[in-house]
């Protein structure tokens, strides 16, 4: 355990995650930092799915224009766009499970070097439920995790093996942290990119998981 290096802030992580998205993609964004990704898609033609039953999620409404019948999966009031469609939950998860969503960008508590993801439960402490996360990681084309590289105690959240109950087994494709970008590859993780001011030694030191070349 070394002193935690800083690297990218939340917005830079979101901006880096936005680079993963391509024109024409249908994408699901988790809560937390992933939600910020929407601010950085620029003029790319991205359609956001909200798993409670909506494609084409728009921004927050203007004050006074909130509609209780129009919320996202984080239960926040939102708006619709000219491409929007609504559907029921069975259909919504049909398109998720069926691989129609190109990518999900999600937060994580832990990721393991084999792509295992834990982001829904801390036994005895946090018992809120998986919501749609298990369906998303099992179904979408590409799972991109955006997370802090280390916890507040400076311990790596990128591990040899997850210690928390899993959300999905071998499901993560790419990890974007404050220190850089890593891909899940055969045998471990591969460093794809370093955050500004972060050295390869620093990211290796901050990572418990095996890093391969």
């Amino acid at each position, binding site marked *: 355990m070394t002193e935690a290096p800083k690297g990218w802030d939340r917005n830079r992580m979101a901006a880096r995650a936005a680079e993963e998205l391509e024109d024409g993609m249908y994408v699901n964004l988790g809560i937390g930092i992933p939600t910020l990704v929407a601010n950085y898609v620029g003029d790319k033609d991205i359609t956001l799915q909200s798993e409670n039953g909506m494609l084409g999620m728009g921004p927050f409404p203007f004050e006074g224009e909130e509609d209780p019948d129009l*919320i996202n999966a984080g239960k926040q009031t939102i708006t619709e766009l000219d491409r929007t469609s609504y*559907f029921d939950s069975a259909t919504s998860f049909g398109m998720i499970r069926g691989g129609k969503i190109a990518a999900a960008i999600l937060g994580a508590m832990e990721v393991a070097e084999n792509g295992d993801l834990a982001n829904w439960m801390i036994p005895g402490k946090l018992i809120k439920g998986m919501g749609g996360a298990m369906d998303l990681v099992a179904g979408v084309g590409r799972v991109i995790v955006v997370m802090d590289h280390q916890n507040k105690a400076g311990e790596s959240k990128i591990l040899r093996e997850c210690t928390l109950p*899993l959300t999905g087994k071998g499901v993560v494709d790419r990890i974007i942290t404050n220190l850089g970008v890593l891909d899940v590859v055969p045998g471990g993780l591969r460093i794809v990119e370093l955050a500004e001011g972060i050295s390869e030694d620093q990211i290796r030191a901050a990572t418990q998981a095996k890093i391969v070349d």
Partner: protein
Amino acid sequence: MKKVYGTASEALEGVLHDGMFIAAGGFGLCGIPELLIAAIRDAGTKDLTIASNNCGIDDFGLGILLQTRQIRKMISSYVGENAEFMRQYLSKELELEFNPQGTLAERMRAGGSGIAGFYTKTGVGTMIAEGKEVKTFDGQDYILERGIVADLSIVKAWKADDTGNLVFRKTARNFNPPAAMCGRICVAEVEEIVPRGSLDPDQIHLPGIYVHRIVQGTHEKRIEQRTTRKKEDA
């Protein structure tokens, strides 16, 4: 084929019994059958098992049936935002079966569609797979999930005609159609009952065959997280 009832309590008359299994529509506080939930509270039906994505908040939605200790077990995907839920769960007064959100929706649709079970990748290799059959199709593992059939479905729609054809509004549709499908009896509360023939037959979200009783009422439609932006920012 008289389906229209005067009040939520009347619409539930004769279909409630202790220990029953209820499927409820709604996501968070959006599109929940708030009038029927209140009527179940008033009826005092006990030892309920309820399949619903969430369990409301402490003082609204299904949360009010926790306060009165009418729920024995929840089948849900997400139960945050509810302190009383956590208290009862941790003290083992309340049983909880977590279902991934898509699995829960599909289990409801399956149960209502004569599909006894289905194989999904969701949850493979996780706690959710424990005790479930695993089968390999084309080199990938799937787990067997069961369709569910409820004694009663309670759902909320925007409009209905008197034959039970339902139309939902925006994301308030959510779990309501699959929940309606899986009940032996389905009771729907709506904001407006419109004359027969005034709904476009191409635009009915849930055909009346799924809906046995209808009640019209006034809905609070509480907002859980009011997020807005300023006009200046647009």
